């Protein structure tokens, strides 16, 4: 595994009104890693994803992606440069089929313009065809080709979770951020998602994984970042983090 840093976060803070969601956070994800991000509810995990993805403006601190500071880069450009994500609550596009949703994933890797679209230029038709084939192949890889023509709003939550992963991967990312990919899934499907994550990591994609299922996190991740109230309270290999007293108290405190 190479040790090159793909994503570096330094001194990152964010607050909503007076509420601090992320505080002075530093961490690094190296290329090829599966990095878990865990913490109790409200620890700032989704906010962190939104900051990295560019949905929220990062005003304090820096976010470096592939060595370049991306604080001011709009969200859609970050996809161009190799980030992709899924959402905690499904964000599949209504009024479109599952296949089209995955085709949207290829958006950043295709070029046809408005005029080419309206005039149905041969290049744009060809591009659409190849994108459709790629999206179909992506669905097939997850065993979901039977869903291709279904409306995105008609499939189950679990299926939607996997479709979102397929859609994120269609963007050919170098870094993929998965926001609770197994939340609300039946047990059997969790294993499937784990397999998917391992496979895409084997293909060289770096993964940031926000997840509540501890067994999954401990078994998948190379490295884990633990947040509480937006702060890093621990970071390191799973077996180290698991025994950290502060981590235990954050979790037990929540349970009690």
């Amino acid at each position, binding site marked *: 595994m190479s040790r090159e840093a793909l994503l570096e976060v330094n001194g990152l803070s964010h607050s909503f009104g007076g509420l601090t969601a992320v505080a002075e956070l530093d961490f690094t994800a190296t290329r090829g890693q599966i990095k878990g991000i865990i913490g109790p509810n409200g620890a700032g995990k*989704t906010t962190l994803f939104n900051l990295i993805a560019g949905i929220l403006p990062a005003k304090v601190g820096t976010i470096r992606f592939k060595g370049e500071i991306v604080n001011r880069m709009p969200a859609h450009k970050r996809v161009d440069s190799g980030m992709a994500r899924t959402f905690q609550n499904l*964000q599949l596009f209504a009024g479109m089929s599952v296949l089209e949703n995955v085709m949207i994933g290829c958006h950043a890797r295709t070029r046809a313009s408005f005029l080419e679209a309206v005039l149905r230029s041969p290049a744009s038709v060809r591009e659409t065809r190849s994108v459709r084939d790629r999206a179909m192949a992506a669905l097939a890889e997850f065993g979901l080709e039977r869903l291709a023509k279904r409306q995105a709003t008609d499939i189950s939550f679990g299926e939607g979770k996997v479709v979102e992963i397929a859609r994120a991967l269609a963007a050919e990312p170098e870094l993929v951020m998965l926001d609770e990919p197994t939340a609300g899934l039946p047990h059997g499907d969790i294993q499937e998602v784990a397999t998917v994550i391992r496979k895409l990591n084997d293909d060289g994609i770096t993964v940031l994984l926000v997840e509540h299922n501890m067994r999954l996190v401990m078994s998948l991740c190379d490295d884990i970042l633990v947040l509480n109230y937006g702060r890093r309270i621990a970071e390191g290999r799973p077996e180290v983090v698991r025994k950290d007293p502060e981590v235990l108290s954050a979790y037990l405190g929540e349970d009690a």
Partner: protein
Amino acid sequence: MDFEAKLLQLIFAGISTGAVYALIAVGFNVIFKSTDAINFSQGEWVMMGGLIAATAIGAGQMPLVIACIIAVLAVATIGGLSERLTVFPMRRPTPILITLITIGLAICTKSLVMLILGKLPVGYKPFTGETPIKIAGATIHPQSLWILGITAVFMVATHFFFERTTMGKAMRAAAADRQAAALVGISVRNSILISFVIAAAAGAIAGVIITPMTFMVYDNGTMLGFKGFSAAMLGGLGNLYGALVGGLTLGLLEALAGGYVSSQFKDAVAFLVLLLVLFARPAGILGQRDITRV
């Protein structure tokens, strides 16, 4: 007329129309709070308030005070009825659907008023005579003072309702978080009904107090509603005090644009400024940017 007097005159005029816009804007805000929808029938309620009062005075030979109270009560009832007949039966009451339905409601209201009360402009005497009051070279119509006074009383009453009464507090809770409110036993549906009643009453009061100054005809509602909506946006949609600020700002803008720029283009100037305010402060003068969560 010298400069100060003219300016003062325009400010008086602006404030008194502005107060009417503010009342209409309150109607928009109350319904927006409870449904997230824009109520296109708001202006029709204003028109109806004026027309019913005029009919009660003219054809019904009623004293002015009684006629005005009847008009407000009648319109408030119609407002509540409108909600029960259109919004209440909806299976999925989305904001956009409610907004569209209120357009249909506005059309129905306007045409029914036309069919029942006729197409002629009507009016009645100002509440306390027409002798203008002179202040520093400018004059104020006594009705303007009534408009300001009644608007102030209504604003204070509304404020009291939402801040102090159980029902008002429950409605605010329902507006802030529908699911949580439902969990603690607040009926969201009822709070929508009450918001329609309050909005209709606010509209009717606006109609009742403006009619002596401008006359009222069945198709005035659209423009009045449009102005009230603009005032609500200008102040910050959903904000009670924003309605006041927005209403007065719009009224003054119109009066000053009419007085100093051109009376033909006064609406254009007023809306141009409105657009600029909107572009500079997208959530209105008193509005706060909302935080979108994923």
